[in-house]
């Protein structure tokens, strides 16, 4: 079917909504965005606010005193350590995302194919892992005694390479995109499943790849719990773990109020970072993601690259 020429209705074309409706939606969007933005702004500002000002006057968008001490506290580790941690995170994120997308899209493609006899069984096989889990102790025992992954960075990479949620979403992207005509046409031309996957389906599934790629990248970037459990060497830390250690101690104290009242708790509290450091941690977690976000975003906000998406 040929593309229709643009109508005389101008830039928005007949595909657009009325100006009135557009205005209303814009207003609502602005309100929602502000409600998201203001607390975030508060977090950013608070991370640069002196701790004494926060304790005296609470959080404010216009603090009485500015300070970099929160960041200094979070980055108490040596510069060398920070660099190493960032490097670990970067490598883990890139390798993990690429590998994960590759493995998951192959699986999702396979289970999206009507001709695949094992389709329903393998969908169930994947989804079942979302429902049942052995828990932390069995996973730990398996990872350490059977796979020998103690203090090994592979333990951060391998278990998260596949996730049922992402696979199912990918499969839904593939099957609802109504690719059957294209696939069948390729088959008539004698293409193998691998070729169809690589040369036809993947290129036209950019929104799907961008979406799941983003989720996966963020997941790898945020990894800290596994580092805490399995990693001993500081040279294998990720940046998130380096920052989160501090936050976890705060939560631990909050959840154990009787500890707060003990000698040990008082000691811990005295040494813990404070409100501004909590905010600084959030800033440090969020900003890198926002930095690489637009790169993904263009693939799923339609109209930006009108026509180019479908290739």
């Amino acid at each position, binding site marked *: 079917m040929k593309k229709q020429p643009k109508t005389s209705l101008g830039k928005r074309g007949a595909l657009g909504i009325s100006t009135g409706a557009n205005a209303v939606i814009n207003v609502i969007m602005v309100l929602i965005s502000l409600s998201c933005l203001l607390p975030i702004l508060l977090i950013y500002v608070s991370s640069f606010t002196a701790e004494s000002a926060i304790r005296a006057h609470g959080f404010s968008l216009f603090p009485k005193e500015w300070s970099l001490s929160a960041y200094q506290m979070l980055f108490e580790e040596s510069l060398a350590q920070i660099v190493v941690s960032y490097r670990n995170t970067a490598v883990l994120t890139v390798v993990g995302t690429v590998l994960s997308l590759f493995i998951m899209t192959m699986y999702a493609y396979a289970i999206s194919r009507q001709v695949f006899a*094992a389709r329903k069984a393998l969908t169930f096989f994947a989804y079942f892992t979302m429902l049942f889990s052995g828990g932390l102790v069995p996973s730990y025992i398996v990872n350490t005694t059977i796979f020998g992954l103690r203090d090994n960075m592979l333990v951060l990479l391998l278990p998260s390479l596949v996730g049922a949620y992402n696979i199912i979403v990918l499969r839904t992207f593939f099957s609802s995109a109504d690719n059957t005509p294209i696939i069948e046409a390729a088959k008539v031309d004698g293409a193998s499943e691998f070729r169809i996957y690589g040369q036809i389906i993947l290129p036209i599934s950019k929104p799907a790849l961008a*979406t799941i790629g983003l989720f996966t990248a963020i997941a790898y970037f945020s990894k800290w719990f596994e580092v805490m459990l399995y990693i001993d060497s500081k040279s294998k830390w990720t940046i998130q773990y380096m920052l989160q250690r501090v936050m976890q101690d705060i939560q631990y104290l909050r959840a154990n109020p009787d500890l707060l009242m003990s000698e040990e708790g008082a000691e811990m509290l005295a040494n813990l970072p404070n409100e501004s450091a909590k905010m600084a941690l959030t800033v440090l977690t969020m900003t890198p993601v926002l930095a690489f976000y637009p790169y993904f975003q263009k693939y799923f906000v339609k109209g930006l690259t009108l026509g180019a998406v479908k290739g």
Partner: protein
Amino acid sequence: MSSNTLHRASRRRGLSLRTTENLSLWLMALPAIVLFLCFAYLPMTGVVLAFKSFRPKHGIFLSPWVGLKNFEFMFRNATFWMTVRNTLLYNVAFMVIGIVGPLVFAIALNEVRPKGAARMYQTLTIMPHFVSYVVVSVIVFAILSADSGILGNLYKQRGQQPIAFYSEPKYWPWILSGVYLWKNIGYSSIIFLGTITGISDEFYEAAVIDGATKWQQIRHITLPFLKPMVVVLTIMRVGQMFSSNFDLFYQVPMNSGQLYSVTNTINVFVYNTLRNSNNVSLSSAVGFVQSVAGFLLVMGTNQVIRMIDSDLAMF
């Protein structure tokens, strides 16, 4: 060519090709299968801990069986059933909020002009996703606190007694739902945006030629295209129906005892009960109950959907 014709054509190609196709597809699925087996199914055998009394010296499989004993502390506890009720109610509400909200948001975002503004709205609204519930609890406290919060100070300035939010249960279903919506609306809309982007413009152009209004376009093109994704996401949520986010229900209400009737969910219950016990078997039992209940619910839901429209069922 209609797709029926194409299917008949493919069947005519014969069994051997079908087998080759299947073999290729099996190969494609293989890496993920291996990973699932190693890191999901192998540890999953540890689920037997729910029926055992864990003795590390004997390992998981040689620890003694205790039958259903690990489940008694839950089932014979009236508060437990209350937390199950709370969990279910919140999850149903969150299912609606977490799907309808982002869905509407995505559709609106897709239509709004100029595109630059749309990109900006989208970027701003995903930011709350990265704020942990601990920090969220601090912000909420900074607003709601009767002693030092923004609202508290407003009341005091007007000479009124501030509302002690952290002592009044009735506000909290709304507060928690609002927090949940705030945190998730932007990020969850990404999946829907991705789906909408995949809808070919040709459909809309054809509709315009047929004289369809915007609303009709959405109803007859956009929504049907989104249906499979909505159904799948709903089914997956149903599987998690008996779980709750610990941080949302513990940290945000600042663990205030007076709010327990509305903030106590299964995960908080488990935390309070097992805190001093460090008991692996008991927590395993709770996980098992949540899994089985979720599993039964999903199978049931999937069955119902299969009867309505077999293409939409997950399996």
